[in-house]
């Protein structure tokens, strides 16, 4: 069974669709600081989060936390991205996983984000994720890939998304969590 979404670069024909399930969705009605998925079942092989997001206030980033672990240095990241003029790469010991469109930018523009969380229930491996993100503001914007590592072998049962360096997730932000089964 191939992994769906941004990992499925060579699929032809129709997929076995019963392997991909919607688990839960959070739609932001009024600005809120955190979007959480709790009590995530361990019955899937991989998770995927699909989101559109906007910051109601300042220019921040989105960070991801697993199992309420807020210790930033328990996370790692590498990033490759472009802004329409130049390409950049870098790394850091933190858990930011995507930029976010914010209130000072084009109205109605949202960051689009697809996150794959691989082997999330395996208790022998640190948890690895990767993210494809982007927004276009008609003359500026960003597109890129993040890889993140949570240096912990616990199964992931809770995921929290927070805005760091900004304020709150704006109205119409939506995060949807999906599970992908193995054979």
């Amino acid at each position, binding site marked *: 069974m191939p992994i769906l979404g941004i990992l499925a670069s060579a699929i*032809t024909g129709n997929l076995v669709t019963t392997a991909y399930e919607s688990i839960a969705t959070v739609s932001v009605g009024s600005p809120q600081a955190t979007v959480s998925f709790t009590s995530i079942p361990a019955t899937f092989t991989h998770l995927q989060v699909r989101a*559109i997001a906007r910051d109601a206030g300042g220019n921040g980033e989105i960070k991801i936390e697993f199992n309420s672990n807020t210790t930033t240095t328990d996370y790692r990241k590498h990033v490759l991205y472009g802004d329409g003029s130049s390409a950049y790469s870098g790394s850091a010991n933190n858990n930011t996983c995507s930029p976010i469109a914010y209130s000072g930018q084009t109205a*109605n523009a949202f960051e689009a984000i697809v996150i794959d969380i691989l082997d999330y229930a395996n208790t022998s491996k640190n948890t690895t994720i990767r993210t*494809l993100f982007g927004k276009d503001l008609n003359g500026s914007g960003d*597109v890129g890939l993040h890889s993140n590592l949570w240096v912990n072998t616990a199964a992931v049962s809770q995921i929290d998304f927070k805005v760091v360096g900004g304020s709150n997730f704006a109205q119409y932000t939506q995060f949807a969590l999906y599970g992908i089964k193995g054979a």
Partner: protein
Amino acid sequence: MAAGPTYTPIATQTLGSAAASVTFSSISGSYTDLVLIINGGTTTNNQFRLNVGNGSIDTGANYGNVQIYGYSSTVASGGETNSTNPYLGVASTTNSTRIIQFMNYANTTTYKTLLNKGGDLGQSQYDASVIVWRSTSAINTIQINTNGGNISSGTTLTLYGIAAA
């Protein structure tokens, strides 16, 4: 907790002969996201491009994009402003693969943002890009085209719908 299976095939088109474009129309608004997978190429070294719309294809200057791409040992970034036919990526007679994510395509409150990723061996390039359609209308029509040539015979385009809980 799980709400049930999704990632539903909506339509597949396989070209029996080369064509200037492929269109998916009357797309249901009952999903949260759409995913379009392209496996194929073009009849000459060329580019895949795209238009979307509601009821008909929008060819106005209502698109923009930001790209990042690598070729040989170089990585670079570029973009288009006020585009009428935004760039997806290079294509050639060698098979290309491309996946386009249409995020929250049916909502009527936000601009529509697409995430696109693909590669082409013939032109030795791999890319990712974000495309915006500056409209709050729902997308129910998608057209894949090129910047002048034809899409190759045998190219397969499959559209999937993903419904959130």
